[in-house]
């Protein structure tokens, strides 16, 4: 890989061991993926924030980077709790203390403590065609497919390395040629409601590549579809005709074709049960989703025995106070900084209803509590929490 004189100097340790390691990670990644050079990135989104996953060792490493600073705007993924709901989320003192130390270590590096999987709403908004280095698979697929920014699926540490150096090796989805469709996904019905996340789960498990779909929906539908695709598989970019900024020219003759029928998505839906928790906001909800939820719940009475938890970025909540107040008055909880997957929710509740295919994918796993999860559209879920 070609390195500039300045990059060589960083690699030789001129700026210290922390910067040297971060540069070495980018160079070695470039080597294994055949990149010819490093290219500048506009921003980074960093995962590896929860104390539960990175542990004392991760905290130790982050502290060892003392003095290292990011060189481009960088934002953080959600963590295990919202500090306004420590009791409800079963957070002990040790967990709280260690988690705060992790956030502080990131902040000391100049990283914004946004703690959301939807930085693209307000906290870290990429433009079409911009190169970025994002971890968090649901944000990666949204940035690539809905915004038309360019990022690979970065890992916790490689996104951090890119944030520090301000560059990424040029390979994969940074190269226009690699952003073309590899598969046409022929959906045999008009999708609505929960069909979008369910199609996502199916497509993610059925193919590895860049799917091309001809379906109609809005940005929330596609956010939920993409997050599910990225969770059940390794997809980082899809094209929806008329929606994805680069859909024109994405098709060539050399594509495989798969079909999706109603039967194919049924297995991901989950059999109807009386749920104890309705969780909306994986990925975190937009201001628009909060508005719809508030308008539906306004003036209605909450059913006993079922909780309603909504997850959003703090920046979205701050801009939607009127809706948040309506939902709270109804008896729902609106939480920041965390989500149904990374909090203890899956271990506290055994029967969960959600509009997220991604949340269902993880919460059904033993490691996350092995809950019985049903995937339904937002309004069906909301109807199940009212008298």
């Amino acid at each position: 890989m070609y390195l500039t004189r300045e990059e060589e100097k960083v690699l030789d340790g001129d700026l210290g061991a922390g910067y040297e390691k971060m540069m070495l990670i980018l160079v070695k990644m470039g080597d294994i993926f055949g990149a010819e050079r490093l290219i500048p990135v506009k921003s980074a989104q960093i995962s590896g924030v929860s104390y539960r996953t990175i542990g004392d060792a991760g905290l130790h490493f982050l502290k060892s980077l003392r003095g290292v600073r990011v060189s481009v705007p960088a934002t953080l993924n959600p963590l295990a709790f919202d500090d306004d709901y420590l009791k409800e989320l079963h957070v002990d003192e040790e967990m709280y203390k260690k988690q705060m130390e992790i956030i502080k270590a990131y902040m000391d590096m100049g990283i914004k403590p946004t703690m959301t999987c939807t930085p693209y709403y307000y906290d870290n908004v990429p433009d079409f065609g911009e190169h970025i280095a994002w971890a968090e698979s649901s944000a990666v697929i949204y940035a690539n497919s809905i915004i038309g920014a360019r990022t690979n699926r970065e890992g916790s540490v490689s996104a951090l390395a890119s944030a520090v150096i301000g560059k990424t090796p040029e390979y994969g989805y940074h190269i226009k040629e690699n952003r073309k469709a590899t598969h046409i996904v022929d959906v045999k019905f008009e999708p609505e409601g929960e069909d979008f996340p369910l199609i996502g789960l199916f497509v993610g498990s059925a193919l590895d590549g860049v799917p091309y779909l001809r379906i109609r929906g809005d940005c929330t539908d596609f956010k939920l579809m993409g997050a599910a695709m990225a969770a059940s598989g390794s997809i980082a970019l899809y094209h929806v005709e008329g929606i994805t900024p680069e859909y024109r020219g994405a098709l060539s003759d050399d594509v495989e074709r798969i079909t999706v029928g109603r039967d194919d998505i049924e297995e991901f839906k989950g059999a109807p049960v009386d749920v104890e928790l309705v969780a909306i906001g994986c990925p975190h909800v937009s201001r628009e989703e909060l508005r719809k939820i508030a308008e539906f719940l306004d003036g209605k009475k909450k059913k006993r025995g079922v909780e309603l938890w909504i997850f959003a970025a703090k920046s979205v909540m701050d801009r939607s106070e009127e809706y948040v107040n309506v939902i709270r008055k109804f008896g729902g909880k609106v939480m920041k900084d965390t989500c149904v997957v990374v909090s203890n929710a899956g271990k506290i509740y055994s029967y969960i209803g959600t509009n997220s295919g991604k949340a269902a994918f993880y919460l059904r796993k033993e490691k996350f509590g092995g809950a019985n999860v049903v995937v339904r559209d937002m309004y069906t879920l909301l109807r199940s929490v009212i008298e």
Partner: protein
Amino acid sequence: MIIQGKVIYPGVVEGEAVKCEKPVVILGDVDAKKGTVEGCGKVKDKILVFPRGAGSTVGSYTIYALRYYNTAPAGIIVENAEPIVVAGSIIAEIPTVDSIDISLIKPGMLVKIEKDRVIIPD
């Protein structure tokens, strides 16, 4: 016999080979406190040999945890390096070599890593 590979993190180390035949799901298969890899055994001060890493990218911090809990292997040999192992071995400073045909390495063999080369008994 000398096998030429690519260096991920440089170093000169020697040890007994511990081999995993299948890709290792780092966040899941590796118990850093005990220093074990599921299905392969203890790795401390040995040369850990496996095809490639898999699973969550947070796995890089699990490799760092092997160093943190003083259970780390002396070196790592992989057939196909991927981002989890690349970032993990660099932050943990574990000498690591990539692009090695691991079928040539038998469990228990005395193996030496010399930067981008692996030396095994003839």
